[in-house]
């Protein structure tokens, strides 16, 4: 699939961008702080409905914009036809915003409450926001019709590769779980829904554990949450295990090409589910395990079992690369995983994801740079940003359309 067009209104430092794209390769070149990553962020949001770097939606709205909303709109060509996707983010100005004008002060009416918040999708609505703070809202439209965010995750699939991803192997487990989640959410709506419900259950359950520890609630109240947790955890674990298995051959191949001795991905769930068991039996077994941990969980006031404590290991033979790998090996493994993600999404959805490479080339040595660009040869749309145009191999540079970004404008 590919974006035919991308329009940004008051998104980050883009006041009014009208970009016509299409299948093929695009190199977005520009100095630091001109808007390269902001562009990648907008494209990624079309896939996940949430920013990969903003703490709050408010950050996405251009400072001092009159309307106090940001808009991302795109025409997308998928194998099964084209669609138009729009994301409107409204964020009433905060008192601290020095640019909040009197006229703008009351703009940005709260839209339909964002039930979803991207990966936190599908949550039951939260109680009304405290009066001091007007809630920000996110509205999504597909071909002009309003839709819930959770129903739009994965309409566009995007694989994003940015410098921070190179630390995937040595970074915290949460980064590796996030990798699995973002990939699976784009592939499967039911995974996305299960995950958002799971987060809700975790929050309620940990609060309950602390209440029980403080004698404010009865331990038997956990029975309900144990059942809910187990019923959501089991399919999440099975899906993650499946994803890792599907990523393995490509990851191994890429790693071999990079001159290593191959790569084995090892999913390390906090609780291993026997995929052969009927689902109800697996859920019952999980619930039993929870019961055996109950006293410890209450004492610590923490959810000790479930996908929120999973990890993913990168093995070269018997060697765990996070522990023993060289910096180059670790980065190579991260690269291999990203390329495997691309393939896994294509196989599962029957459509190629858009590949967005935000400033990663300059971070890779020439071998890995070449391996990356060679592997993306077949991808229908590649959007690559760089602050160092010289770092792009000549063949790729010649095959791409160049866009220059300067201060929120692309010419």
């Amino acid at each position, binding site marked *: 699939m590919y974006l035919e067009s991308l329009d940004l209104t008051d998104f980050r430092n883009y006041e009014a961008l009208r970009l016509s794209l299409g299948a093929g390769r695009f190199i977005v070149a520009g100095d630091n702080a001109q808007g390269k990553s902001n562009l990648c962020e907008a494209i990624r949001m079309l896939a996940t409905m949430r920013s990969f770097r903003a703490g709050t939606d408010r950050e996405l709205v251009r400072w001092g914009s009159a309307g106090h909303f940001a808009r991302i709109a795109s025409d997308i060509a998928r194998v099964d036809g084209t669609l138009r996707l729009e994301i409107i983010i409204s964020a*009433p100005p905060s008192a601290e915003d020095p640019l909040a004008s*009197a006229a703008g*002060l*009351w*703009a*940005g*009416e*709260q839209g339909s409450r964002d*039930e979803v918040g991207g990966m936190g999708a*599908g*949550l*039951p*609505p939260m*109680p*009304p926001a405290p*009066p001091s703070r*007007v809630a920000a809202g996110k509205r999504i439209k597909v071909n002009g019709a309003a839709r819930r965010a959770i129903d739009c995750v994965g309409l566009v699939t995007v694989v994003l590769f940015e410098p921070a991803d190179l630390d995937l192997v040595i970074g915290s487990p949460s980064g590796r779980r996030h990798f699995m989640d973002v990939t699976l959410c784009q592939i499967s709506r039911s995974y996305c829904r299960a995950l958002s*419900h799971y987060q*809700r*259950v975790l*929050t*309620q*359950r940990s*609060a*309950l554990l*602390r*209440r029980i520890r403080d004698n*404010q*609630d009865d331990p038997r*109240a956990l*029975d*309900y*949450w144990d059942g*809910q947790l187990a019923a959501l955890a089991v399919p999440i674990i099975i899906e993650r295990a499946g994803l890792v298995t599907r990523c393995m051959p490509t990851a191994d191949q890429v790693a071999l090409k990079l001159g290593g001795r191959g790569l084995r991905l090892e999913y390390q769930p906090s609780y291993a589910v026997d995929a052969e068991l009927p689902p109800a039996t697996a859920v019952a077994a999980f619930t039993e395990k929870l019961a055996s941990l109950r006293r410890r969980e209450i004492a610590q006031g923490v959810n000790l079992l479930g996908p929120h404590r999973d990890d993913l290991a990168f093995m070269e033979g018997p060697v765990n690369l996070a522990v023993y790998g060289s910096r180059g090996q670790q980065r190579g493994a991260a690269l291999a995983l990203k390329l495997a993600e691309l393939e896994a999404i294509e196989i599962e959805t029957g459509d190629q994801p858009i590949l967005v490479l935000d400033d990663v080339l300059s971070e890779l040595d020439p071998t890995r740079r070449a391996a990356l660009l060679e592997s993306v040869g077949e991808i229908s749309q590649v959007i690559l940003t760089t602050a160092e145009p010289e770092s792009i191999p000549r063949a790729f540079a010649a095959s791409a359309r160049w866009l220059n970004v300067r201060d929120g404008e692309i010419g």
Partner: protein
Amino acid sequence: MQTTAAAVTALIEEFAKLPGIGPKTAQRLTFFLLRSPADQTRRLADAIIRMKEQVITCSTCFNITETDPCPICASPQRDHGLICVVEEPLDVLAIEKTDTFRGVYHVLNGALSPMEGIGPKDLRIAELVARVQHSSGEVREVILATNPNYEGDYTAAYIAPLLRPLNVTLTRLARGLPLGGDLEYADEGTLSRALEGRRAFEG
């Protein structure tokens, strides 16, 4: 720098605190009232104050009312053997609008939510159990009509074992209500179907 009269700003701020009203609507309402006749705004102000002063909660069902017991609890036309347990007075309003329910209500005053610090003692759960207990067998069925989200479901699951020994049939609204929804937002058709299709509750 004060550009707008303080009284106007104050009213806008008060409106904006209300659920479902954003700053823009708050502003529109305020300027509408500013231009409307004095007696009309006085009637509005009086209605708000009277509502606050005269409305009490029914000591039987805990719904809001001006008389105790409330008209529903006092009515011989209603089936007192059938209690519909809801979270909020607004849910009573929604169900009454369907015109299909002839039983009585019990308003819990919310749903259990550990993360918000709402436990069993914060709701009218003990009152519900006592009410069924003291009815000496008159109550045949309790419909646990809490919202179809985690908190509502958990609340129903919490109440069920407390009522089961009292020999009453427990039911829960049929699905058809969207998960994660609020009763008060369901349309009347959906809500009456959900009421008619209620199921025995295992939770």
